[in-house]
């Protein structure tokens, strides 16, 4: 059992997590995700509260905690003037492996991260995605019981993100527990078996991805009208399909969370047609992090850069 108490910056983070394969800590910038990970990684010391990793008291025995964790941070903390293999072997040695064992571990991790072909190139020639994967790999050389991933895919292009996700999923199948932080609902959704949503250092919701999504509705139906004057009527239509529709006048959009997206979408189209409302576009999509936040807290998330903001289409 991993028990997470509260820290000063995380005044309201009371949380007990059972060993699940992947726990995602989801929240906007400044929610306290990184602070929490740094506390678990023994990089900063909580001023109050208790914190246990794998039964070990983080405050009293940080050295023992470091024996069971691996950390991959927001930056790819690798030595650019060394090859991927050398980076892995170096950290293997630091984890306490013999030269031979470190070499073997490097070969294993390179294969795991699908970097074998690029193993002997200097990291400074790697792409951003490859750097993240070697960074992730470095934290695995020592076979940690708990792997801490702080925003592993921040700043990556979509293709690299998917490759990184694949790498993380393969890890899960080898039996490593993962605590990852992310601002992206879809990332948490794809990787995590449990999601904890935090804001301002406080847990606002926790559960499986499926449980959380029902909190915000399974799907969002969004209607983009030609004439803003039609919005009240559209809102009326949507109110019959789901709970608490919202209207955004400047972009001439109205949207609502619904449970059974497919059939509700048909209902929406029929109702809009019968009201004679001219629409630019009607779409069905997954709820965004903003919308989950909105439904959980009643106020918008403070993320300015969530990629799940509805695009202009």
């Amino acid at each position, binding site marked *: 059992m991993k028990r997470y108490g509260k820290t000063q910056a995380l005044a309201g983070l009371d949380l007990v997590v059972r060993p699940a394969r992947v726990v995602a800590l989801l929240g906007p910038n400044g929610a306290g995700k990184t602070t929490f990970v740094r506390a678990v990684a023994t*990089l900063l010391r909580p001023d109050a509260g208790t914190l246990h990793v794998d039964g070990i008291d983080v405050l009293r025995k940080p050295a023992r905690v470091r024996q069971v964790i691996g950390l991959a941070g927001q930056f790819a903390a690798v030595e650019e003037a060394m090859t991927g293999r050398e980076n892995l072997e170096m950290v293997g040695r630091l984890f306490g492996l013999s030269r031979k064992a470190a070499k073997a571990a490097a070969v294993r991790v390179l294969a795991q991260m699908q970097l074998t072909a690029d193993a002997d190139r200097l990291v400074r020639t790697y792409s951003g995605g490859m750097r993240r994967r070697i960074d992730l790999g470095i934290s695995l050389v020592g076979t940690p019981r708990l792997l801490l991933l702080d925003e592993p895919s921040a700043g990556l292009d979509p293709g690299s993100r998917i490759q990184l996700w694949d790498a993380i999923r393969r890890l899960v199948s080898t039996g490593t527990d993962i605590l990852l932080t992310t601002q992206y609902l879809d990332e948490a959704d794809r990787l995590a078996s449990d999601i904890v949503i935090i804001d301002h250092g406080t847990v606002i919701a926790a559960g499986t991805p499926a449980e959380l999504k029902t909190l915000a509705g399974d799907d969002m139906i969004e209607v983009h009208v030609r004439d803003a004057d039609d919005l009240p009527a559209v809102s009326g239509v949507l109110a019959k399909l789901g709970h608490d529709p919202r209207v955004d006048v400047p972009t001439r959009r109205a949207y609502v969370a619904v449970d059974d997206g497919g059939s509700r979408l048909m209902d929406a189209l029929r109702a809009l047609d019968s009201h004679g409302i001219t629409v630019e576009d009607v779409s069905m999509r997954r709820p965004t992090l903003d919308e989950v936040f909105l439904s959980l807290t009643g106020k918008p998330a403070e993320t300015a850069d969530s990629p799940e903001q509805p695009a202009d289409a």
Partner: protein
Amino acid sequence: MTDIPFTAPSPTLPRAAVNTGAGLWVSSLTVAGRMLRKFARTPQLIAFTAIQSALFLLMFRFAFGGAIRTGGSLSYVNFLVPGFIATTVLWSGMGAATGVAEDVDHGFVDRLRSLPIPRAAVLIGRSLADTALLVWGLVIAVVFGFAVGFRLHGSVSGDLAAFGLCVVFGFAFEWIFIVIGLVSGNAQAAQQMGLVITPLVFLSSAYVPVASMPDGVRQFSQFQPVTSMVDAVRRLTTGRQGAALLPHSTGHYVGLSLVWAAAIFVVFGSLAVLRFARR
């Protein structure tokens, strides 16, 4: 405390072995090995250090040198080169400050701190590697010194002792730069802060005789560590002509510079460890 119920029960996980972590010696050497590889594979670093050093020497030897009187029979080139070599260790230390700051800024230090190694190893490894680089810088400086006309006039053991003294002094000063790197936050700030050594280099006996300086400046120059270091190296390598400029015994200058080195190491080594251990 709110217990958060999770529906997914945990399967029986294969437990990974505990990573015992490397000891102080292995981890320090591993950290040092990374630094040396980085240096060897960044030719610009090596070339830049050498070029900067050569320019400096040439400027003083040929542009300013003619106007500087040593105050004795010692030729300016024989006066200058021991000072030049001794202060080389300070310039190469600046690289340590920016290097440490970069490692902190880019998360590399965090990675090392999250590993099951003695945290002191991160600093010890760094200082070992930088001291090795310093020896390299000293060798270049000595070669340049001979190239511009410097000749040794001390005993062989004295000359070797002077070289060793430079290494010891460089190791001690390294800790000042490690502290600067740790507190500065980023490489640019570290470089700016590293410039605090400039007055220590120029307001010393390295390039001009202290006696030629005005009151106030002269007293500062006389009693600061770099002067004691330069004087010791000069006394050891310039024989009788140097001795005429430096009235005390060789042991006096060497002893004084060793005391300075020890004091700097103790003060800044402790500061570095304290700063580093903070979390």
